[in-house]
């Protein structure tokens, strides 16, 4: 375990260095206008992270969610203009279905399609993040009463671009009449919610990383920006707002740690409920505070703050919303009754 943890922290440091050197506001802007940075993607892929959660026996790195949590946060910290987190989760899901991981970026559709007896798909996957730049897409389909995972070649599909808050490429994907290049039944209990939970956990970690970075940006700005003959950091109103931002960043970090460890403990849906409920609200408040501290300059296209705040708004709502996950958690807690609340909270 120690060795894997060391490898994991090494990878997150390498990723941090790579992204710090490579990711510029221009590159974020480029991906938002549809230009995919293939060179950056290849460098990320070379780090070996795309198979991080895939077992070693299937050609992956065999790491745990807890191991890669720091790397997922680093992706949020840099608002990385590549679907590295999305791809490593997709490969993990492929391996859960006993399918081989694929090279290159992979997008994931969350809608439930149907796969007929001839092995042909019916239906569409709406609002699939990164689909326009991914050679492969995975979708869920019902087949003979069982949930199947289908691997699709993007060139076989009709994509209709969709605008999203992050402006990263996304599309509605029409799958009618398409034959998957591979299909396998998902294990018993792996539902649509399970798939969503994988991405909610990813986004929880990305939110934590982004909030930590926004906090650093705000502290720097407050120390530099002078008004009324002193840095605005001297004003108690600013200090207290940033203390609150720090609290939200810290809580989202703890939420991400919890969510990842639940994912490792075969309770990824619970992890997603708690993680996204907390981190989603941290994203909401954190974005508000950061914009208030940065004032008008932070509201401009030219300033890079919006690359982070728009992604926070994206991630809190991409794999169902924080509101939805809160509702799932509440439904579960309420149906267990008042007497079970505390025992369930402390159950390790």
């Amino acid at each position, binding site marked *: 375990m120690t060795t894997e943890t060391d490898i994991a922290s090494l990878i997150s440091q390498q990723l941090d260095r790579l992204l710090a050197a490579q990711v510029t506001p221009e590159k974020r802007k480029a991906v938002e206008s549809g230009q995919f940075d293939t060179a950056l993607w290849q460098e990320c892929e070379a780090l070996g992270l795309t198979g991080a959660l895939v077992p070693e026996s299937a050609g992956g790195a065999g790491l745990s969610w807890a191991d890669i949590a720091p790397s997922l946060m680093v992706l949020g910290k840099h608002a990385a203009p590549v679907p590295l987190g999305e791809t490593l989760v997709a490969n993990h899901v492929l391996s859960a279905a006993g399918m081989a991981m694929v090279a290159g970026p992979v997008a994931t559709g969350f809608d439930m399609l149907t796969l007929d007896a001839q092995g042909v798909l019916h239906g569409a996957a709406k609002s699939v993040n990164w689909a326009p730049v991914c050679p492969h897409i995975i979708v869920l389909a019902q087949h003979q009463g069982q949930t199947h995972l289908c691997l699709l070649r993007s060139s076989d599909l009709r994509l209709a671009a969709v605008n999203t808050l992050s402006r990263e490429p996304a599309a509605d994907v029409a799958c009618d009449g398409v034959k998957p290049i591979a299909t396998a039944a998902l294990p018993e209990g792996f539902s649509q919610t399970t798939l969503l939970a994988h991405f909610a956990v990813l986004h929880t970690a990305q939110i934590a990383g982004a909030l930590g970075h926004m906090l650093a940006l705000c502290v720097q700005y407050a120390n530099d920006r002078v008004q009324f003959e002193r*840095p605005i950091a001297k004003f108690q109103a600013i*200090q207290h707002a940033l203390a609150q931002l720090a*609290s939200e960043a810290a809580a989202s970090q703890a*939420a991400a740690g*919890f969510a990842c460890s639940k994912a490792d403990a075969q309770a990824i849906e619970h992890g997603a409920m*708690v993680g996204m409920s907390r981190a989603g609200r941290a994203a909401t408040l954190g974005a508000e505070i950061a914009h208030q501290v940065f004032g008008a300059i932070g509201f401009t296209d030219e300033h890079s703050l919006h690359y982070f705040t728009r992604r926070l708004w994206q991630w809190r709502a991409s794999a169902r919303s924080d*509101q939805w996950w*809160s509702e799932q958690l*509440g439904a579960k807690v309420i149906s267990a009754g008042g007497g079970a609340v505390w025992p369930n*909270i402390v159950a390790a």
Partner: protein
Amino acid sequence: MSSPFNFDRVVLSDAYDPLRQEVREFVSPFRDTWSGWKIAHTWGGIDKEFSKAVGAKGWIGMTWPKKYGGAERSQFERYVVVEELIAAGAPLAAHWVGDRQTGPLLMRYGSEDLRQSLLPRIVSGELTFCIGLSEPNSGSDLASVRSKAEKVEGGYRLNGQKIWTSGAHVSDFMIGLFRSGTDKDAPKHAGLSQFLIDMRSSGLSVRPITDLTGEHHFNEVHFDNVFVPDNHLIGEEGNAWKQVVSELAFERSQPDRFLSCFVLLPMLIDELGTPDRLAKRRVGESVADLIVLREMSLSILGQLEAGKVPAQEAALVKDLGNTYEQKQPALVRELIDAAHDIRPSHTLSDALGYLTQSVPSYSLRGGTREILRGIIAKGLGLK
């Protein structure tokens, strides 16, 4: 990425489950006899008989050395006991200060004879302590205390006044902060000393302050030439500021900083009937918040156990925790049509009646929200 805080995950293993179960079985018959109003006080409620029963179980001073009556159990075991008792709404105030603060303080700074005479009696739940910090003109600006300790033959003579002293009227001893230095040009944090004061001392008088709930928790404590012997000086003369501050990381990150209103949640859930989407959402948010606060609190405990002083993290948990606690009565009001009635026959109304009135104090006690946010801001490097 260099982060201004650390919340590495620490998990309580299921090896503590039997202890947890034991606490639940212990508290359950008591709880059956408590009113909603009493349950709502939880760790702030005074019940000396209950504290003695907790002591008899070995759950006060349970981490302390055996030679002082302790059980040499781990901080994590103590955490399990404390969180279980608070979640059940158990009244802990009669032993709370002794267990959490005075005992550890005596072990770090007290003389050997004080340890031997006092610690075993804290462990048994016999002794109640109060803390004399605030004064009429020293609230958040604690270092400005003016009550004086003057060196005399064989000890010190204390003069001045403390205020907002919780439980002084039921306490056996106070740990009080006094100015012993006489150098007017010294920084105000210097020249402060901590004393152990017998509440039966001559010249010491306690006057009640009734709070807005109608109850008597606070007091004024007046010192008129109160004599304390030399061996009741805790630690070094003039070093009290450091001694006081070093306790804070522990004090500010414990379950009492976010569980004070927990008892409302099970009651609320049982009152919901068929919940609508809003109810599910709000309950989900509340549970998610609580799980994450507990994660953060446990992380701090792990860091303390590893010999670190996570003061930033603790200030952060207290601020988040108090804000969370304070929202709980409002959550009940949001989800059920709670009236103003406070009826002993209706446990939820009884608990809600007390907690609605009590929550404003949560972001005052143990460091106000404003002080905490100032500490956090400073730690962030705001210049």
